[in-house]
């Protein structure tokens, strides 16, 4: 039976029409391609009018197949499938040819571009004829959500969902939630106290009946698919029985072992071997650091156990595992701080009074190691001059090419705090001052008025090698003042390095675990940079906060809430459509070799022991085709990507080679049955 194919060529304004002769292409398709009964071009095929054009032709002309030559199917495949469905045609009988991304945007010769467009349309027409009706199925959505990361972003997402009445499992790697924000003293540009605005949210999380807080825990494994994920959580042994601990803190007080706190105090302060990162920690239960604890190292001490009034210490405690069923996942795993020893010219780690931004945050914090006093490394001397160095590891091809987005404002905040606390002369060495949000530029104005000195120039080096008498005993910041056009040596007492925000060191592993991808720089990749910033290419896995790219607290909170809203939409709807574009194993041909089992990137294939064959779970399968190509017995077929469809498309693409030859030779690779 001959099919009736409609071909629709989109101008995309001048995006396609500027490089491809769209009218000529439509005419050519109508006149030359077999089975094409209608061929039209239109200014914007994706517009309502464009869609209606297709729908009317389906109804009036009785079209049985549709080809749309427009943009990438990535963008509008859904649109045109829907148009077909509206007119009663199975949506999988529509095929798109990407005339924009694959031709007009990457060509410079209109004639050649039009020739290539003919090939693509011809290929799509031959392919669509082989396409089959497919039907999506539905699966229920589990209303529970897994939120990974208990910084301000994860906290926001968890609270939004929990307040709406949905259950949340919040997993945090550290002993307490709070993230980087809990380490800060003030927040820009309003200068409100970070802890004062964060800790109420933290305790909401701790007390919320709809939130299960799993701190000192990590996600081990995730399986399943949108609406129906299974997550295995490892709860690391705290050595403290949460059920018995009252959080009184006697154990911490009595613990004789003091170690440098590299995490919460950024290495600037100390904590005990049994510790709570900070007084307002949520949950309140302490943790024994087994690598530092004298008992674990030497077998004696147990001071904490002796003094614990509720016998909550448990030295034998083991890691435990929890298996969770959730419908959606929100990743809010945050960032790592740049290690400034990677730029030796700034002297961090070598020159005592060079500090990292996180060290300075802790120093400013009233609850920090210096009780909020800004002092030199000797712990007592107040600096009379401070240099704040921007772009340390940012905007630098050797380290991170991107702008870390928050450092300019954080430097202004530091300037304000330093002036307020010490009266010191504070210098900011910047490349470009970036203050693009609400009330940010006004904050910059404020610091200018407060007398902070701004030097436009990236710092070349920080040295203690004095050249001139005024430099003796100081740190000298050498730069070019690019506005004055002169080299400057600025002697100061203290240097603060605004280190870059970097992807978590294990971001790529995390991405792999959750089936999402990372950008070249290591940030999690969103589905669309503008229009779908918190979704990922994996349905049901959302990203929020800095793990997606550098951003400040307001933006992180907004993304946390946005991700929660996306999840709520899924839960409210209650079901998800399962794409029918999946692989199927034909049992009669399967030899049970299991090659496909391990190749499947989505763990969708299992081996049925009783039958001795492999089986594809359609809900997990993404239709990628890896197994289809790998199966040595050709026992697997991929719906929507059958051999017939692919070879027909190739034949179509080669229309002029084949017709020009006159012989009409078939493309038939060896070893593939027709």
């Amino acid at each position, binding site marked *: 039976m001959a099919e009736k194919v409609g071909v629709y060529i989109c101008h995309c304004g001048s995006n396609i029409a500027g490089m491809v002769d769209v009218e000529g292409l439509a005419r050519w398709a109508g006149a030359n391609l077999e089975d094409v009964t209608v061929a039209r071009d239109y200014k914007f095929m994706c517009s309502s009018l464009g869609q209606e054009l297709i729908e009317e032709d389906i109804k009036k002309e009785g079209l049985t197949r549709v080809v749309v030559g427009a943009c990438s199917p990535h963008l509008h495949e859904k649109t045109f499938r829907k148009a077909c469905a509206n007119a009663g045609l199975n949506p999988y009988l529509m095929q798109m040819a990407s005339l924009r991304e694959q031709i007009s945007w*990457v060509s410079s010769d209109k004639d050649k571009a039009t020739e290539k467009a003919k090939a693509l349309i011809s290929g799509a027409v031959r392919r669509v004829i082989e396409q089959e009706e497919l039907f999506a199925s539905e699966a229920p959505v589990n209303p529970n959500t897994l939120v990974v990361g208990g910084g301000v972003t994860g906290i926001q997402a968890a609270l939004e969902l929990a307040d709406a009445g949905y259950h949340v499992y919040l997993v945090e790697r550290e002993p307490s939630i709070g993230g980087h924000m809990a380490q800060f003293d003030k927040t820009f540009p309003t200068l409100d106290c970070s802890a004062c605005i964060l800790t109420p949210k933290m305790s909401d999380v701790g007390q919320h009946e709809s939130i299960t807080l799993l701190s000192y825990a990590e996600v081990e494994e995730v399986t399943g698919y949108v609406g129906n994920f299974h997550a295995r959580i490892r709860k690391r042994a705290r050595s403290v029985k949460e059920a018995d601990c009252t959080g009184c803190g006697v154990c911490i007080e009595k613990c004789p072992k003091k170690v440098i706190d590299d995490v919460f105090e950024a290495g600037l302060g100390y904590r005990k071997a049994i510790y709570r990162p900070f007084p307002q920690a949520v949950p309140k239960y302490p943790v024994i650091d087994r690598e530092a604890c004298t008992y674990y190292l030497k077998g004696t001490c147990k001071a904490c156990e002796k003094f614990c009034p509720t016998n909550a210490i448990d030295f034998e405690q083991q890691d435990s595992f929890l298996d969770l069923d959730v419908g959606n996942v929100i990743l809010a795993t945050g960032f790592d701080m740049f290690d400034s020893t990677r730029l030796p*010219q700034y002297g961090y780690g070598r020159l005592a009074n060079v500090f990292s931004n996180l060290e300075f945050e802790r120093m400013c914090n009233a609850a920090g190691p210096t009780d909020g006093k800004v002092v030199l490394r000797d712990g007592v001397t107040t600096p009379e001059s401070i240099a704040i160095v921007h*772009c340390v590891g940012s*905007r*630098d*091809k*050797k380290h991170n090419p991107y702008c870390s987005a928050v450092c300019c404002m954080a430097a202004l905040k530091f300037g304000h705090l330093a002036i307020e606390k010490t009266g010191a002369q504070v210098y900011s060495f910047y*490349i*470009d001052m970036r203050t693009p949000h609400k009330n940010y530029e006004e904050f910059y104005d404020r610091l200018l008025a407060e007398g902070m000195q701004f030097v*436009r*120039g*990236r*710092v*070349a*080096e920080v040295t203690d090698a004095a050249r001139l008498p005024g430099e003796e005993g100081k740190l000298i910041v*050498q*730069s*070019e*003042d*690019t506005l004055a*056009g*002169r*080299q*400057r040596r600025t002697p100061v007492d203290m240097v603060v390095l605004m280190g870059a925000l970097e992807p978590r060191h294990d971001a790529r592993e995390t991405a792999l675990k959750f089936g999402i991808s990372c950008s070249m720089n290591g940030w999690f990749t969103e589905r669309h940079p503008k229009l779908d910033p918190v979704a990922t290419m994996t349905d049901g896995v959302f990203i929020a906060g800095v793990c997606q790219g550098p951003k400040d607290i307001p933006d992180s909170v907004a993304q946390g809430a946005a991700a929660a809203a996306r999840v709520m939409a899924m839960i409210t709807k209650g079901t998800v459509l399962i794409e029918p574009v999946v692989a199927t194993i034909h049992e009669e041909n399967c030899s049970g070799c299991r090659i496909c089992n391990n190749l499947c990137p989505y763990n969708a294939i299992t081996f049925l022991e009783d039958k001795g064959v492999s089986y594809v779970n359609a809900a997990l399968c993404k239709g990628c085709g890896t197994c289809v190509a790998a199966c040595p017995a050709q026992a697997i077929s991929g719906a929507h990507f059958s051999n017939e469809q692919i070879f027909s498309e190739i034949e179509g693409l080669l229309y002029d080679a084949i017709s020009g030859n006159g012989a009409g030779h078939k493309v038939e690779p060896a070893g593939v049955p027709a």
Partner: protein
Amino acid sequence: MHEPSRRDGFQGEVIAATPGGESLLTCIQCGTCGGSCPSGADMDHTPRQLFAMINAGLRQDVLHSNTPWYCVSCYYCTVRCPKEIPITELMYTLKRMAVREGAYDDSKAPDFSRTFIRWVEDYGRSFELGLMGTHMIRHNPFGAFKIADMGIGMITKGRMAFSPTRIKGMDGLKRILAKAKQLEAQA
């Protein structure tokens, strides 16, 4: 695929004559080069300013600047540049352009280079005593007294040769250099 956009005019010329020069287009004027330069204080313009001037097409101002002649080839700017611009190489390019066009003003540097190379071109090896002697007499006859003890020290310690060494393959080297110069002139 993007073709690396080559600029025309002076900037294009500078880029074309420098290995890896295309990255000059990515300069963000951060001043790391100017801040790093050990002799930056004595330059008419910092390297960064020079790049802005190249961008603005200020050919004469750039080629008359003493900046390239104060470059000591320490490569600090090159390794610190956040855009990986080969700044030291660019300085060599500007020196060559200035020499070719006779645009440099009163720096002793081009003449020092020429005197140094004259011994090399004639003998195949450099000759310190000849170089320093010739250069001093021409540019700083009284300065010689300042470092006289150094010269005497060098001689008494046996560290100064009184005649240059000539390599055996001098004829071949001369042919190589003659050809090289001919090709450079055509390039």
